[in-house]
């Protein structure tokens, strides 16, 4: 009952914020595309995986949109429309998995550090100091370069760069919450450490972290796409927006006399990434404003 009225209040607050609503609409649209991918872009019968973009010949020169290829083709004749549609699934996978894994690791380590204190806390916090002293992207590039280029390794590296700030944030809130009386009461009732942490402390300290994480989804997607852009992501022909953009890099100057000869290879995936990130950011902004009235 309590959560229902909370959701209703949130919906009411959201209706007053057209930009946040726009964010929900953008992400909703991409969700529909991702769900309907097999209908929008049927997988060719002889394909090994739905995520492999069909190739129409081997001409290196990209082609403009046509009846056969709605968005045209990239270099080496990968169908851009197919890549964009199935790339939506890749984008969601990256956004949700990276933030989810970083959150889980951050929650686990941050709550333990805050709850137990002592050397566990000290070690962990010094470790996060070190990771946070790196320029994130360079560390991620090193991790992917060592593990070998692949989409999974891109996700691992971005999550590895992301979790320390979550652990720090949650630790601070756990430190404050663990002194509260209801924790003492739970302890007096004989609850175990694990139960106190999971049932009492984490639910009461997690909101700021969730707000920050919802604001981070956009930047996580950008970082992962940047790694793909640097050629560290999925192999050529895999449906991923970052990779499609990186395939356009040699063609941005167009043909002699016409700089926009291959505009589709840059603009279509570029605008998709932009809208996807914008949608998450607008949504995150809305969530933050509603949960943190100070910013209004």
């Amino acid at each position, binding site marked *: 009952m309590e959560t229902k009225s909370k959701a209703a209040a949130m919906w009411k607050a959201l209706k007053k914020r057209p930009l946040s609503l726009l964010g929900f609409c953008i992400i909703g649209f991409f969700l529909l595309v991702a769900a309907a991918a097999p209908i929008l872009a049927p997988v060719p019968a002889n394909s090994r995986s739905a995520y492999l973009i069909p190739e129409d010949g081997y001409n290196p020169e990209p082609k403009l949109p046509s009846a056969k290829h709605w968005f045209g083709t990239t270099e080496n004749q990968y169908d851009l429309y197919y890549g964009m549609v199935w790339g939506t699934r890749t984008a969601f996978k990256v956004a949700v998995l990276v933030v989810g894994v970083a959150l889980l690791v951050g929650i686990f380590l941050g709550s333990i550090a805050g709850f137990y204190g002592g050397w566990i806390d000290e070690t962990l916090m010094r470790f996060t*100091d070190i990771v946070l002293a790196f320029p994130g992207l360079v*560390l991620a*590039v090193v991790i992917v*370069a060592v*593990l070998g280029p692949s989409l999974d390794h891109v996700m691992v590296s971005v999550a590895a760069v992301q979790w320390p700030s979550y652990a720090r944030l949650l630790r601070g809130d756990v430190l404050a919450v663990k002194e509260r009386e209801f924790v003492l009461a739970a302890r007096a009732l004989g609850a175990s450490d694990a139960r106190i942490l999971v049932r009492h402390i984490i639910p009461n300290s997690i909101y700021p972290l969730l707000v920050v994480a919802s604001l981070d989804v956009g*930047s996580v997607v950008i970082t992962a796409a940047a790694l793909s852009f640097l050629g560290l992501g999925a192999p050529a022909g895999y449906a991923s927006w970052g990779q499609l953009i990186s395939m356009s890099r040699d063609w941005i100057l167009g043909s002699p006399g016409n700089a*926009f000869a291959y505009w589709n290879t840059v603009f279509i995936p570029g605008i998709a990434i932009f809208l996807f990130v914008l949608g998450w950011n607008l949504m995150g902004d809305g969530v933050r404003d509603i949960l943190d009235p100070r*910013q209004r």
Partner: protein
Amino acid sequence: MLKFIARRLLFLPIVMLGVTMLLFGALQFLSPAMRASLYVKDPRQLSALNEVILKYGLNKPMPVQYWIWLKQVLHGNLGYSETAKMPVAVAIRAFFPATFELTLVSFIPILLIGIYFGTLSAVKKDKLLDQTTRIVAITGYSLPSFVLGLFLLMIFYGHFQIFPPGRYSLNVDLLVHSSRFHHYTGLLTLDALLNGDFAAAGDILAHLVLPATTLIYISVALLLRITRSSMLEELGKDYVRTARAKGLPESVVVKKHARKNALIPVVTLSSLLFIGLLSGVVITETIFDFPGIGRWSVIAAQQLDVPGVMGATLLSAFLFVVANMISDMLYAFVDPRIRLN
């Protein structure tokens, strides 16, 4: 204050030690043969792979290798970067001024635009100007630098044939490497002016326009938001109401009273923003082929050039810790309440 600085300075080597250990540890996942292959330039030299491994001690246990590297560093020898084709110390000296110049050229407009429009946006809350500023800000931090960079290159370099990538044109390249060009500051635009060569300064500036625009558009959002929300908070406080009640003109209330206090978080954040720019130019430099630290560190990381990565990362970790220190000192400087405690 002195004690505070001393503690931070003590912290610096510890963080740098940690950073290098972590990097070194990560790179140990590669087999000695893979790490040795960096030194092999020609397939015919492959038979010498074992000699290379022995020569550089690549098969020794990791702590031993780290110790060897650390001893070299403490002797002032950062090693040789295969990707830059020069010693790491020389590479840093060659690439850092370029990155610094680009960062500086972007940072000053970011400060001016961010503070000016951030204030205005708060004063005219929910008016057209505020809405426009907020839309510019949110699109700015939603646009990946590589997407914006490619768009700009296509339009301004491809179509209009102005603002080329790189750091300078060929004739300026020859000029700056000639003996009659004096390097006073390392900032090439300034050096060209000091040498009295306005054409060269114009050329260098033209190369800076697109990467700087990219950085400004993407980074100004943070400053806009912080200034706006901090300004809104101050405008709601009692002393602002008092100032208004005693009949001060609105411009004095905004500029002399509220903004001075609102800038406290902005000032402290700006040193971190500067370092964020300095180490965040990785992608921008790569797209615009701008020969700075960022582009070098990406190439070094991609090709697993261990000394190169270590050198570039050491530099950014150093800058990061120093910036944190400056930020804390600025905080104490602009806010007397902190100084007194």
